[in-house]
């Protein structure tokens, strides 16, 4: 007999961060949430990760910034944002009033910049956690923190000291051994790991003998990268004890369930927000029944239950 779906518990714990449900939206794919208010019931989301902020405003990369590829897209947005002060003044009050956990994504060019950002955010109200974007392929040097275990460990440890928020480290798939980086982030005290950022790629216009993107290289996202993201979640789940957040090509309840079973305690929806703006709502609608189908009464009961 399947469980009564309404008795299924959807809340999840990511270290010190509690979410009402495991369906979040990924940084850079949901703007500052305000944009989506007409299409999505924002209150229902488990967590919102707004677009990554930096200390100073950044114009971002020149167009062409995105190009569609087979079942995916490449982007080289380049962290276009108005800086931390504008974020706190103009975006945070709206986000904080919504209800879902607000997980502020930050990126710095140095460990010190990450620390300064974390300290500045510490003084602001309405933040539930920070996500360290140590994996953006679109800013020179951006992936370095996420590609080197000792740098990653240092950044995570410094941010943990600099603020009292739960810390999520968002890792890049563009390394040989993600597990090694994951262990370094765990050792430094990360509450959870977000897996993964985009896969470095490129598109070529052969007629003009030119790269298609203004910034030459870009990050691949969407359904095309789901198998890579699943593989990394599965591998990292064997390597660390802290909770994982699955990200990469998730667009349906089946995709989300695959990530839970492979080892993710929560998921973030990214590119799907672009082509199916209400995807998160449909996944949320279907979640209790999908969990009940496995005889589970909570999300936790299915996380990492994959056999060989």
């Amino acid at each position, binding site marked *: 007999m399947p469980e009564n779906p309404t008795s299924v518990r959807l809340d999840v714990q990511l270290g010190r961060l509690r979410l009402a449900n495991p369906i979040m939206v990924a940084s*850079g*794919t949901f703007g500052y949430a305000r*944009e989506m208010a007409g299409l999505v019931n924002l209150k229902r989301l488990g967590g919102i990760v707004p677009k990554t902020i930096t200390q100073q405003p950044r114009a*971002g990369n020149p167009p062409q*910034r995105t190009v569609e590829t087979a*079942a995916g*897209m490449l982007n080289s947005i380049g962290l276009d944002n108005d800086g931390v002060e504008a974020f706190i003044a103009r975006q945070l009050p709206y986000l904080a009033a919504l209800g879902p956990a607000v997980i502020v994504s930050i990126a710095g060019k140095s460990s010190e910049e990450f620390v300064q950002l974390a300290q500045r955010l510490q003084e602001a109200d309405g933040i539930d956690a920070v996500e360290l974007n140590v994996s953006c392929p679109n800013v020179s040097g951006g992936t370095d923190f996420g590609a080197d275990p000792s740098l990653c460990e240092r950044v995570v440890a410094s941010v943990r000291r600099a603020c009292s928020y739960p810390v999520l480290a968002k890792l890049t798939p563009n390394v040989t051994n993600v597990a090694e980086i994951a262990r370094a982030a765990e050792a430094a005290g990360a509450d959870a790991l977000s897996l993964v950022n985009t896969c470095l790629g490129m598109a070529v216009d052969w007629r003009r003998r030119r790269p298609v993107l203004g910034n030459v290289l870009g990050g691949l996202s969407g359904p095309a990268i789901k198998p890579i993201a699943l593989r990394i979640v599965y591998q990292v789940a064997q390597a660390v004890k802290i909770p994982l957040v699955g990200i990469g090509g998730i667009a349906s309840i089946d995709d989300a369930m695959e990530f839970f079973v492979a080892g993710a305690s929560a998921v973030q929806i990214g590119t799907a927000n672009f082509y199916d703006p209400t995807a998160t709502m449909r996944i949320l609608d279907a979640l209790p029944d999908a969990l009940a189908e496995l005889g589970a009464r909570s999300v936790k009961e299915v996380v990492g239950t994959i056999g060989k």
Partner: protein
Amino acid sequence: MSTPTYADHAWHGPVTVDENVCIARDTYRIRFACGEIARRVLPGQFIMLRLAECNDPLLGRPLAVYDVSADADGKPHYLDVVYLVVGKMTRLLAETPAGARLESWGPLGNGFPPTPAEHLVMVAGGIGQTPFLMLAREYSGQRTYGDPPRKVPPSKKITLCYGARGSEFLACVEDFRRVGVDVQLSTDDGSLGHHGLVTELIAPVVERSQWPCRLVCCGPEPMMESTARIARELDLPCQVSLESPMACGIGVCFSCVKKIRDSSGNWDYRRTCVEGPVFDAADVEF
């Protein structure tokens, strides 16, 4: 700085193709029922259209709303989109039969502001005529759009300067003539109308006009840039509707940016989907 137009009144869902007909070379008009969008859309706003549950092409494509028409009860019900086949999605769209399902969201973007225009001069290149039919209907006083309907003081005259590669690509000309628009054509190959660039038609229209002119322009970027320059030289107000490629259409991906100048003359990348697609030509850094 302009205030963004978020998708606060947008609708998202499946739509069923009512008809999809070839109206000029590589050019089609597709019609589907969607009262939610038809009721609200303003001239110059666009929708995103996507092949249902299709992963390749994956993303929606921005397309201007060409026309809205009523159901049997007289309520806005059908949306018409006119599109040129240029790539992956439009090629598949051209093969989409009546009865097929698409996904759409909209209306999106700011659309043209209801600024009075005694002589409205619409400059279109390529497939850039598509946002202008509704604008012409509105400025001729024949129709109102929006919910609640917005009021625009009727123009004394409306001209469409419209250019394409050759006469076989010119689409919708009769629709404009039926609204009473003075249509001036140009073709690159001289097969119809003025042999040359559509922008060469602007100055003569303005010089002959008895009224102050206001320009609106949509088409390939070089043509919009040149229209902006002509407007500056003739000291005429001019708005352009940019055709920046978009991934989401709702302001969340930051792919559709264009350099836009603020009042102090500094530029910043602005999202054309929510801060445009219509901008004052003088603010656009081409």
